[in-house]
């Protein structure tokens, strides 16, 4: 593997301020090579968005505590001063959000928001920045781009807004794109268009993408590699192909089986994982998935569960891997 562009090492995020500290992310390590797309999947509250926000240190500073190391292009994000951080945000790494209507300032026209972002990072005239905003709108294929620049977020459709958000994120030519469930709020046909657009832009611009989603289908569409998160930990990581074909962690298997798919016959029950995710302020000993796992034994409920290498690029955090050779789970 080449030198990773984004390298997360032993990241931990703890939220304070409640009655008990909440360990939202626990010992997460993840590398993304230049031009690679990695999807982080998991259910709500598994820590995937928190992990992604930590890459830009966007979690509330006062209430969260970060440990570990995050390197982007060789620079440690944790060590950056406020000034370095705001220079880094937007120009090195950029982010797109789940619901663009909430993530765009409602009282500024989109063109103005893009111009503002460009001029924040570069010394460039207003006219030139606007010309670039127009190019970006055309690049993400917004129809009648010129007049759309003067639109406010509420004047656009959902898919169009997400395109505009992508244009805004790409405004300062970042090398890393962080996408926080960018298709969840869109309807199915628009989802595909946005995913294809992301894939295409990634190839064209050589972007590294960290793609957070709970939609496995979307992850397969975009990502080269997939990491599965559960209760603040990465429990399995593999190439998209391996993960779908030969999942090894019982949780991944459960996720894949719980999807609705074409082969389902009317009247059959959807396989769901029993139980509910653990309370992050009160994690159980041992493997956090053990209370819901059909393979768990006494050894799973104590101590720290390490990461096991299965094959090149495929690893899982489970001590019963000898029991987990599943075939064609999806």
């Amino acid at each position, binding site marked *: 593997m080449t030198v990773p562009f984004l390298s997360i090492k032993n990241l931990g995020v703890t939220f304070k301020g409640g009655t008990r500290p909440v360990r939202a992310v626990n010992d997460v390590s993840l590398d993304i090579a230049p031009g690679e797309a990695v999807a982080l999947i998991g259910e709500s509250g598994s820590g995937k968005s928190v992990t992604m926000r930590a890459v*830009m240190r966007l979690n509330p500073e006062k209430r969260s505590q970060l440990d570990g190391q995050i390197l982007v292009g060789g620079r440690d994000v944790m060590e950056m001063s406020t000034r370095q951080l705001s220079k880094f945000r937007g120009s090195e790494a950029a982010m797109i959000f789940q619901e663009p209507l909430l*993530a765009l300032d409602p*009282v500024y026209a989109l063109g103005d928001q893009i111009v503002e972002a460009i001029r*924040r990072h570069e010394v460039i005239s207003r006219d030139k920045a606007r010309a670039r905003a127009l190019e970006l709108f055309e690049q993400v294929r917004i129809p009648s781009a010129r007049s759309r620049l003067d639109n406010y977020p509420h004047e656009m459709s959902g898919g169009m807004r997400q395109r505009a958000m992508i244009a*805004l994120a790409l405004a300062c030519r970042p090398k890393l794109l962080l996408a926080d469930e960018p298709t969840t709020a869109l309807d199915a046909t628009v989802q595909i268009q946005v995913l294809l657009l992301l894939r295409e832009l990634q190839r064209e611009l050589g972007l590294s993408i960290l793609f957070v989603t709970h939609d496995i289908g979307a992850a397969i569409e975009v990502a080269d590699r997939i990491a599965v998160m559960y209760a603040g930990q990465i429990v399995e990581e593999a190439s998209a192909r391996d993960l779908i074909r030969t999942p090894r962690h019982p949780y991944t298997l459960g996720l894949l089986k719980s999807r609705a798919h074409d082969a389902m016959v009317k009247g059959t029950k959807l396989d769901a994982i029993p139980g509910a995710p653990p309370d992050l302020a009160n994690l159980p000993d041992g493997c956090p998935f053990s209370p819901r796992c059909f393979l768990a034994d006494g050894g799973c409920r104590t101590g720290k569960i390490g990461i096991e290498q299965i094959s090149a690029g495929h690893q899982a955090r489970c001590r019963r891997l000898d029991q987990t050779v599943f075939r064609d789970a999806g």
Partner: protein
Amino acid sequence: MLGYSLRRIIYTIPVLLGVSLVCFALVHISPGDPLISILPADASVELQDRLRVLYGFDRSYPEQFLLWLGRALQGDLGTSIATGRPVTAEVINAVGNTLLLAAVATFVGFVLGCFFGFVAGYFSNSPMDKAASAAAVFGVSVPHYWLGMVLVIIFSAQLGWLPASGAGPGGSSQWKLDAEHISYLILPALTMSVIPMGIIARTVRALVAEILAQEFVIGLRARGLSEFGVFLHVVKNAAPTALAVMGVQLGYLLGGSILIETVFSWPGTGMLLNSAIFQRDLPLLQGTILVLALFFVVLNLLVDIMQSALDPRIKR
């Protein structure tokens, strides 16, 4: 924008008609004969009747209303029963004084209120928020006539720095922009500003806290905006509502705080209303209320138009 403004202007016409009807009716529904207060107790019935005809009180109410409205449209609000001077001149004079007082008070209140509100909203639940919120609650809940009297005791009676009452030399009609006149303005304006200060501070605090909790603020930070850059976005998001509240407050203060104007003997609409009520001076009362209501409607119109200019979501 232009279409919206025009539509809003046209909407005010029925509102103004309704307002004039209500204000005519209110005054006439209330019991008591206005002429009794100006006539000697032993006035003959003929004299009473003559005056009644002179003031038009002998006609039917609809007739009186239409006559009054027709004259009002030409700028004639009748003659004051108590002073015999034209109501229009009296009202314009008083409105000018109140406008001055209210504008200064609203401006001071707006600036202080925004300051306290932003501090409280930005550092919500910190000691600074507690202090700023306490100042806001004080402003809303302190009795203003009491505050006015306390200020007079401290700054006029004890320290002798500022005059205690009146609008300065020349009385109500010759206000000039000089140090002496301004010294007369300080205490009443300060007392009056406490009301909008409290209300605006509370509004702005809630607004800022709500805006900061929205996802787009994270979006702005993710674009690399500095804290000051984010602050400017927060200001622009808060501005429409804050200005609307300010406009409404200015409207209330224009009604002339009767209590404050009485405490400071400020020759504004509050004082005018006060004396009109006590003397049962119907034309003066009607005229003053009408002009004040007119101001209120126009002010709301301006606020609406300004809001639509600031907030793109209101336009269509």
